[in-house]
């Protein structure tokens, strides 16, 4: 036993120094899981791209519960991973507590702002991208009623809904937006059955285009929309291929780029606040062979025009999170 202790201590410190010397970057996925066909998967894609281009490796973990957030952060920081990228607003509290304890480690949080000298906060102007797909929805709708289905009811998802509603009323002031949230717990991200029922409920109220910003629940929304013969709009990643010819477009959020940049910058990454919007390609809408027949040239030119105006500041899209209210939609 007396001999074991120093031996184990030596082994442990060796492991620590080995970790520090490598300084691999690390990526922490949120509860939605690495392959949610959406937000987390986009982050995974960015990390994979970095790994392929540089030939280096990175570490990753998929969280299973809320309690693991701080633990995972500390584990990676102790092991010498640098930078540590986490995807999801929910890391804010954990990072706020951990960041100061590891001043030499750089952290990147996506979708939330955390103060700290060693933290880069990347937020996306989802309301701008949602505005564009809202315009497309309003132009594609024949019933003048469009739907929105959110995942968990949090300010971030309301930001999507609010931008969408503004886009809808910009393209067609008479159009009606029906907005529903799936739930108030994290289970709302993975309940496609509820997503289906919400879609059916919206269809029976006249909606003929639905926009799903709901993680795994969105799979059920898109499926039901395709079954019932109406159009749907995907989110975060390009989801047009899920039901070719029946997904109008997808609001893309370049989470992968944010991860890629953080990994490329490595340990000397610049910290602070970074906004990814229409002007720098952070958000947008997806066009490919699967939805080419659904989007008319007229629609596309109107949306591109609006995109240019938003980028130049001519059109201001209200951000729900700036004052927790939405002029175009009541929740």
């Amino acid at each position: 036993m007396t001999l074991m202790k120093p031996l184990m201590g030596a082994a442990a410190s060796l492991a620590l120094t080995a970790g520090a010397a490598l300084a691999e970057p690390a990526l922490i996925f949120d509860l939605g899981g690495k392959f949610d066909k959406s937000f987390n998967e986009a982050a995974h894609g960015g990390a994979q791209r970095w790994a392929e281009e540089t030939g280096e490796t990175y570490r990753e973990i998929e969280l299973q519960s809320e309690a693991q957030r701080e633990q995972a952060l500390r584990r990676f920081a102790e092991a010498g991973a640098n930078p540590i990228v986490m995807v999801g607003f929910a890391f804010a509290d954990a990072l706020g507590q951990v960041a100061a304890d590891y001043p030499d480690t750089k952290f990147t949080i996506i979708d939330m702002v955390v103060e700290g000298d060693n933290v880069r906060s990347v937020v996306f102007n989802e309301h701008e991208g949602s505005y564009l797909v809202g315009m497309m929805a309003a132009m594609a709708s024949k019933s003048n009623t469009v739907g929105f289905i959110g995942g968990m009811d949090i300010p971030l998802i309301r930001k999507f809904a609010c931008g969408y509603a503004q886009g809808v009323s910009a393209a067609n002031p008479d159009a009606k937006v029906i907005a529903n949230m799936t739930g108030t717990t994290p289970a709302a991200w993975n309940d496609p059955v509820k997503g289906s029922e919400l879609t059916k409920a919206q269809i029976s109220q006249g909606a003929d285009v639905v926009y799903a910003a709901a993680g795994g629940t969105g799979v059920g929304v898109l499926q039901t929309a395709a079954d019932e013969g109406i159009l749907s709009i995907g989110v975060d990643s390009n989801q047009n291929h899920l039901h070719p010819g029946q997904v109008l477009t997808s609001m893309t959020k370049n989470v992968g780029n944010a991860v890629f940049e953080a990994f490329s910058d490595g340990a000397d990454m610049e910290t602070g606040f970074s906004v990814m919007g229409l002007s720098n390609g952070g958000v947008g809408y997806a066009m490919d062979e699967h939805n080419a027949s659904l989007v008319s040239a007229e629609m596309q030119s109107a949306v591109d025009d609006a995109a240019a105006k938003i980028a130049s500041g001519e059109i201001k899209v209200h951000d729900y999170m700036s004052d927790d209210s939405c002029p175009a939609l009541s929740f």
Partner: protein
Amino acid sequence: MDFLTIIQLLDSTVRLATPLLLACLAGLFSERAGIFDIGLEGKMLMAAFFSAAVAAVTGNVWLGLLAGIGSSLLLAALHGVASITFRGNQLISGVAINFLAAGMTVLIAQDWFQQGGRTPSLIGGGRFTPFDLPFAGSVSGVPVLGPIYSELLSGHSILVYIAFLAVPATWWVLFRTRFGLRLRAVGENPAAVDTAGVSVVGLRYAAVLICGLLCGIAGAYLATALQAGFVKDMTAGRGFIALAALIFAKWRPWHAMGACLLFGLLQAIALRFQNIELGGITIPVQAMDALPYVLTVVILAGFVGKAIPPRAGGEPYVKER
């Protein structure tokens, strides 16, 4: 609220109540025989995955259903071995099954399909299609009764009809057959059954396997009829709501149907109307979501009659000391 909205609401109620009803009847068989089962959720999830996986690979939804039932039976047998043969704690075994299912489904799905813990979307014969009752199309023009028949009763998946037929079947088996009498007796006083020369272990295994069968159908319904594929954790707590419904129904089949339809209706209302205005008061959607649990607590607290579980429930039967 117009007539058509009510029909649509009830239609949604039927769809949402079906998995609850199947799981609730599953729990009913098991608990009436004295085996508590909080692993309904896990069995449904496992069945949902295997039914979707096999249906995706073979393109035949009936093979999928069989695979779903088979996987659920396997977990049920595991629960049986742990809690009947080895006399382990039934709650612990149930929790273990839930964890096992949550982890295994994603792991196997990732290994087989590399789509991140989900199965490919089911197409064509890989899904249960709506089943039209005879004359559904021709009577839809009849006022009031027409829409009720063609919209509400017709056009569901065949599994929905199986679920609702399972209610009278359960009642008949439990209350009108010798097997049912013994099964109920084994949940109240297993020693008496043993004295009569009937195998307690055999009866309890039978009950647990019937539970597995019904959970299998419930899981297959979620993945191949309501949805077109498996997504991780897609049961989303329905197994626990079914348990709540079982307590609410005081372990009786017809009441179980009533409880599941009520819970389904509450969900349907919550999905259809986000916030309900009632005479100046706004009821938020969260209140509707919580209502099934609140009602169950009220029942358990003994405000509305008493919910008395089978007396020997939760206790392994020891023949000799």
